[in-house]
Structure formats: C-alpha cells, structure tokens
C-alpha cells in the first residue's frame, strides 16, 4: 500500500466515522438537541424562523453533497445565486428575529 493510499484511507475513515458518530448522537439524543426549535424568551412555543432555517440548511446541504457526488466532478461545484438568496434570506430572518427579541422587545 502506497503512502497516498494510506493517507486517503485514513482521511476517509476519520471523516466518515466522525460524521456517523455525530449523526448517531443527534438521532439518539446523546448529543443534546433539547430546545432546538423552542422560543427562548419564556413562552416555550416553536419558532417558525428556526424551523425554516433547519429546512433551508438541510436542503442546501443535500443539494451540495448531491452536486459533489455527480460523476466526473473534480472541483467544488459553484453555488447559483438562487440558492444563495434562499440561504441568505433564511439566515437573515433568523438573525433579524434574534435582534428584534434582544433589542426591541426586551
């Protein structure tokens, strides 16, 4: 086995094993996910901006991995402006709500 093959095997094993461990921890609650969607200002209800941010994150991550996995690709795929607007808008909504809660409501 050449050194390059050994390094490749190490990198693949580490990254995929670590990703599996974290995913398993999230799914089995070994990693704390309590309150991920909840309102932290006291009411305890589910916040829509958190839910939409989670959906946008998972959608973009899936799309990106899918693009990378397409056959013959040897460089990082470009992100088109539509996805960037979607992700930026989603994140902006989340941050705007936090700013509003922190500086306007309280």
């Amino acid at each position, binding site marked *: 086995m050449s050194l390059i093959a050994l390094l490749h095997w190490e990198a*693949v094993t580490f*990254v995929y094993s670590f990703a599996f*461990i*974290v995913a398993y921890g999230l799914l089995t609650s070994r*990693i704390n996910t309590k309150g991920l969607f909840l309102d932290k200002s006291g009411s305890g209800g589910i916040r829509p901006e958190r839910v939409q941010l989670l959906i946008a994150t998972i959608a973009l991550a899936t799309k990106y991995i899918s693009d990378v996995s397409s056959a013959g690709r040897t460089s*990082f795929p470009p992100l088109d402006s539509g996805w960037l607007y979607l*992700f930026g808008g989603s994140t902006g909504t989340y941050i705007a709500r936090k700013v509003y809660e922190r500086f306007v409501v*309280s």
Partner: protein
Amino acid sequence: MANMVTGELLAKACELLACLFLGALGIVLLFEIVTNKIDLEWLISEDNGHASMARFQLLVFTFVIAISFVRLTESAKEFPAVNSGVLTLLGISASTYAVGKGIQKSGETPEQVAPNTPKPEPTTGKKGEADKSNDVKTTSDEGNQGPAHAD
C-alpha cells in the same frame, strides 16, 4: 550517491511516520469519543442548556465541506481549489453563529453557568454549602427565566 539514497530513505521514513501519526491520532480521537472520554453531549448547546440552530448549522456545513473535500481530492488526485461558493457557504454559516453569539453575550448575566462546566471541588468542611450552591444553579438553568436566552 550514498548521501542521496540516505536522504530519500529518510524522507520516506518521515512521510511514513507522519502518516502513522495522523492515523493513530484519528483512531485515538474516535475511540475517546465513542467511549465518552470526549463528551459531545453539549456540542450544539448554548450556555443555558438549549440547543442552538446556529451551532447546528455550522456543524452541518462543516461536515458537508469536509466530506466534499475528501471526495473531490479522491477523484481529482489533488487538492481542489476552494471557490467562492464554498467560502460564501461557510461565511454565511459562521457569521450567523458569530452574530448570534454576539447578541447572546450582549445580554448575558454573569451568573449563567454552562451545564457542562465542571463542578468545583468541595472544600473541607463546606461540602454541604457547595452542593447546595450547585443545586440552586441547576434549578435556575432548568427554569430558564433569565433575560439572556439568546439561543
């Protein structure tokens, strides 16, 4: 000639040593995580014990980029150039986390204690007091009624 051969052998030995060190480091880290010596329970949690969307998002995109990097390096047989799309993706994600943290810190009370903070060693003769103090903090965290619940 002999010096060249020795140099090449030394270089190969160093490369092999580096490979073995990285492999051993990876195995040790994974083993300690699996056996809970490295505790990941609060990986995406804030100081108040609640999970944070910004941390979760940063975690997801870090893995997405890491897996992409490994796959592309495998197919291209060289390190892929990092383009603006990757930088934008990680930039937005990291900025969300940083801004959220800034908002949280701007309203934080000094009494907040992270759930994973190691408990202080009880001093001799004051064990009861130390336990009582810890109990109060835990109850306060569970009640979660302070002003600083930015995430």
